[in-house]
């Protein structure tokens, strides 16, 4: 047993909230979860203005970057920025998922196969419009009944 239940959310930065919403909701199927601190006095108190999304069981807080974040090179689809979020799709849906990325004109790398001894099957790697790295994969353990994350509704 680990001494950590789960990862509940991440805050990442984007250049444009509308562009991010179109990408996460339109292409990946995320749901808008919350608009936080869209009130002037909150901003004046130093709270961050952000919009949050749920993608599967994960909460993303998309925070506006205060200045232009340097973008990774266009052909760089993995690495550079220090972290990447990976979402699982069912093995049976994997090809349809790739077709969906293609149809939406999202450049991606892969599919890349993982070693048989590990839990992951194959991955594709891509970026959101602000250069945050993402991954979609199917997992060999997709039918294992893992503990569920405690219900949490914050962010």
């Amino acid at each position: 047993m680990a001494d950590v239940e789960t990862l509940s959310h991440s805050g990442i930065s984007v250049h444009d909230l509308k562009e991010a919403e179109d990408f996460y909701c339109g292409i990946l199927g995320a749901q808008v979860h919350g608009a936080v601190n869209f009130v002037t006095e909150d901003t004046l108190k130093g709270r961050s203005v952000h919009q949050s999304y749920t993608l599967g069981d994960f909460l993303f807080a998309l925070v506006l970057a205060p200045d232009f974040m340097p973008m990774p090179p266009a052909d760089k689809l993995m690495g550079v920025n220090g972290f990447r979020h990976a979402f699982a799709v069912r093995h049976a849906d994997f090809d349809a998922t790739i077709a969906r990325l293609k149809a939406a004109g999202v450049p991606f790398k892969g599919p890349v196969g993982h070693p048989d001894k590990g839990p992951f099957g194959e991955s594709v790697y891509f970026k959101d419009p602000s250069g945050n790295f993402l991954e979609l994969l199917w997992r060999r353990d997709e039918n294992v009944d893992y503990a569920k994350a405690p219900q949490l509704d914050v962010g």
Partner: protein
Amino acid sequence: MIDGFSHIVLHVTDLDRSEAFYRDVFGLDVIGRDLVADEGRNSLLGTNTRQRVLLVEVPEVVAIRPNSSSIHHAWLLTIDEFERAKDRFAAAGFDINDSRAQFRARGENSVDIFDPDGHRFQVQAYSPAATEVIKENTGPIACGHMDDYAVGAVKAFVKGKFFLVRIEEGFLAVSRWCTHMNGLLSWKQEHWHFYCPMHGAMFNRKGESLPCSRPCPTLRLHPVTIGADGTITVDPDTAIRRDGFDPAQVVPAKAGASSRFPETALC
């Protein structure tokens, strides 16, 4: 399309050092080395759910992108795990005070921890205080004469933590404790609603959740009594839970009127 979150990849400059940190300080389980095709030597770690953490060794790490802010990842712990984690963090030399304590709802526990490469983590846990019904044992609060409240008025009481609301039909004493997680609501006169600065819930003057990103149960009420002389008394030590607004909850602006609620609604 998406079946759920699978894992987060974190780039690190020294795999041994980081694996030890994520295992011993954060408390994750080490699953194994090089189980994943990625850009460098890697170690896969596990939480108590399906979610995994993949540490990948690279020569150089930019943990926070330049000109961005607020980048962080949050572990969710049970409150017992949180107490143990705080001891480990303190032993590892971290400041375990919450740097953003003023922005937290009651029962929301959080500390910020940076890993050896500067990746920022929020470690959070919720205690039962987040959702308990709070009572301050103030005793009944005198709220002045009913004629001093114009229709539409909302007066916030600091002692007892309630709003006395005068709507056309009469009076409601609405609890200021947010039904999401005990944030303290404020009245936004310019928008005609109650607002929770914790996670953005909004409620109308009757205490109903407004169409917003955070639908919550209807706000609790407190009993209102209007004396023979027209003075109003509110008892914040009695809370009334409700499923929605019902006109019968309103106390008419008449001498001698008072709230009536079924026994089962009291909490």
